[in-house]
């Protein structure tokens, strides 16, 4: 890099001296000599590289520039020869400087990777490389240190800055039993951590690998451009030869060689993608590749899977209405029935039981899950059923009208109500609230501001809850009482109506619909590899505000790509016209070429500064 700069400076000075001597009416020989030396200095390495690649039977832009410069000297155009090589060297120096900046976002991210870990071996504290920590081994992390592995806190508590993973620098409190991530920073407490994953297997390692692969993923536009330039370069060389035989002008032929590599065109798409993905990665948004940036640009409908996105998915039991037995007895039976279920409503019931009951919850003797409906279980010889109306209808158990009315009333208030029965007799209703997140109330407006036309909610909740939530949050529509497969159908229906659909979910039980949608967005995915694998765009943080940012960034990147491509195509044809019309020659051709490349890079770099604020 420094060498490049030196070459540029020396040949630049020589060119200036040559012109000075010319104005001062010195011997023209000095002018010519200085120009040729400048050309040799600037072009020496270009020529060597051209020769080396030619040996491998590969024609490079370096070869074209070398031929043009040598040719210019032969026909006595010393200034043009010096200018072409100087501009080429200067241009590629600036290019590498600026593209390095665009790529830095990712380099900076990689620098956040932890290097060292403190472990206890042979009864002594020992510092070892982070990748060498063994699974299950205990790691000690002191205040201010980076957490070196993914694992669970076994001792101590602290505030942790998880910006490396989630892009959010607001510290998160972690204590015994909590999950911590490699690359995050322990701010103020002493922690002992049991190692679960190290090195490339950690969430942080996955992010790095994904971001790297994402940048290599070629967007459709990029493929198109590369195909074009594949034919363009040999085409121009051919044209250069033909034009010599037709016009007899060597100058014209040489100029054609200079514009033979459509640099701006080739770089237009990838540079925007790198900048876009880099900005995302810095903010805890993983975009799987350029293709998804381009696709996101066309999204006009966004569908939420409510749980885990609009609501936290941390449902809480707020009321138990009993018709037989005591409240604690109902809770005990319900929690036992749900013992093996990971459904969020089941978790709410178990949490409530854990908090209120003195004894621990027992597992049921037998147990059956009815996906999307509920569970049936046998506990201490009692037949317990717990679930929604559909389960009861399916099992042929009628819910008395009085209970049904109470249930409806609660649901109108936005509660999810599960029915509990013992031996086919309804014994209680459990009302569960899964309130929208605070920032869900502005989400519709924010998404519309970044260009989404329609925002809908797809939910397993019943009609009444869905309606009340959709209304509260100002959504444009909802579809309720959907099973996972119904959500897929709903997405397909929207697509048939002509919408480009983005589906947002927590990536845990909504995988099919995320895959079906044009763009699948998983939210709050830190630590869940499956979500990261499935989604096209992943928001590491469990923060709804990142969603408009991700959508806005993708749309901005897509616009940026279009601007770059349009500009580059224009330049290619303008240059070609200018050269054939004998208005553009060696030096000016190279100047326009290099300038266009830099303009494209600078335009892409605006994406690094993209922000919704």
């Amino acid at each position: 890099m420094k060498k490049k700069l030196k070459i540029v400076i020396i040949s630049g000075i020589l060119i200036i001296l040559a012109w000075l001597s010319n104005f001062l009416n010195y011997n023209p020989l000095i002018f010519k000599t200085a120009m040729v030396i400048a050309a040799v200095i600037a072009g020496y390495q270009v020529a060597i590289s051209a020769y080396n690649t030619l040996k491998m039977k590969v024609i490079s832009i370096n070869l074209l520039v070398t031929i043009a410069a040598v040719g210019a000297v032969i026909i006595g155009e010393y200034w043009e020869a010096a200018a072409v090589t100087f501009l080429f060297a200067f241009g590629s120096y600036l290019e590498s400087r600026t593209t390095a900046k665009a790529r830095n976002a990712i380099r900076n991210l990689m620098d956040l990777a932890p290097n060292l870990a403190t472990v206890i071996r042979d009864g002594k504290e020992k510092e070892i490389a982070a990748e060498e920590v063994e699974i299950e081994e205990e790691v000690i992390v002191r205040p201010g240190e980076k957490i070196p592995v993914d694992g669970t806190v076994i001792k101590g508590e602290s505030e942790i800055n998880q910006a490396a993973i989630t892009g959010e620098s607001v510290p998160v409190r972690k204590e015994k039993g909590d999950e911590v991530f490699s690359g995050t920073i322990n701010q103020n407490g002493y922690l002992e951590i049991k190692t679960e994953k190290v090195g490339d297997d950690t969430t942080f390692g996955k992010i790095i690998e994904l971001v790297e692969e994402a940048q290599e993923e070629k967007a459709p536009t990029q493929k198109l451009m590369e195909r074009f330039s594949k034919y363009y370069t040999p085409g121009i060389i051919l044209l250069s030869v033909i034009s010599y035989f037709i016009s007899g002008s060597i100058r014209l032929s040489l100029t054609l060689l200079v514009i033979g590599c459509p640099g701006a065109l080739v770089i237009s798409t990838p540079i925007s993608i790198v900048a876009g993905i880099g900005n995302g990665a810095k903010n805890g948004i993983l975009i799987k590749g350029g293709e998804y940036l381009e696709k996101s640009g066309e999204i006009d409908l966004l569908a939420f899977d409510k749980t885990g996105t609009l609501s936290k998915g941390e449902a809480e039991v707020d009321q138990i209405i009993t018709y037989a037995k005591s409240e604690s007895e109902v809770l005990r039976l319900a929690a036992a029935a749900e013992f093996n279920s990971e459904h969020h409503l089941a978790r709410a019931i178990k949490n409530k039981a854990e908090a209120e009951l003195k004894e621990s919850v027992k597992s049921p003797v037998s147990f059956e899950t009815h996906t999307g409906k509920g569970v049936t279980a046998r506990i201490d010889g009692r037949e317990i059923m717990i679930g929604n109306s559909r389960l009861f209808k399916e099992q042929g158990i009628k819910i008395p009208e009085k209970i049904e009315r109470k249930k409806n009333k609660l649901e109108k208030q936005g509660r999810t109500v599960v029915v509990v029965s013992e031996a086919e007799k309804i014994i209680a209703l459990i009302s569960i609230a899964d309130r929208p997140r605070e920032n869900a109330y502005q989400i519709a407006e924010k998404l519309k501001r970044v260009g989404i036309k329609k925002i809908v909610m797809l939910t397993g909740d019943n009609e009444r809850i869905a309606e009340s939530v959709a209304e509260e949050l100002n959504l444009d529509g909802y579809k309720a009482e959907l099973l996972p497969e119904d959500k897929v159908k709903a997405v397909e229906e929207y697509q048939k109506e002509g919408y480009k659909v983005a589906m947002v979910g927590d990536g845990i039980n909504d995988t099919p619909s995320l895959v079906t949608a044009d763009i699948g967005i998983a939210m709050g995915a830190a630590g869940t590899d499956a979500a990261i694998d499935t989604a096209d765009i992943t928001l590491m943080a469990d923060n709804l505000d990142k969603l408009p940012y991700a959508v806005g960034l993708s749309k901005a990147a897509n616009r940026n790509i279009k601007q770059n491509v349009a500009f580059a195509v224009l330049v290619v044809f303008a240059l070609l016209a200018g050269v054939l019309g004998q208005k553009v020659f060696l030096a000016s051709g190279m100047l326009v070429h290099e300038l266009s490349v830099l303009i494209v890079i600078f335009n892409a770099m605006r994406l690094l500064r993209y922000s919704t604020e």
Partner: protein
Amino acid sequence: MKKIKLYLEELSCPDCANKIEQVLNKTEGVKKADVHYTTSKANVEYDSEKIEVADLKKAVAKTGYKVERTK
């Protein structure tokens, strides 16, 4: 058949990536090479009986670029 990632010194132009890619693909023993300008990385699939990593590095060096590390 083996796969390796060559991390190159920063590529300064997209043309260089094409150039390295073509050179690698023409190297005896290389089955497939993808060179990525954006990450300055070459993903190479090669026959380890015919060619060594050192030979891949040499081929890259011919184009004027260094291999910084491999994985």
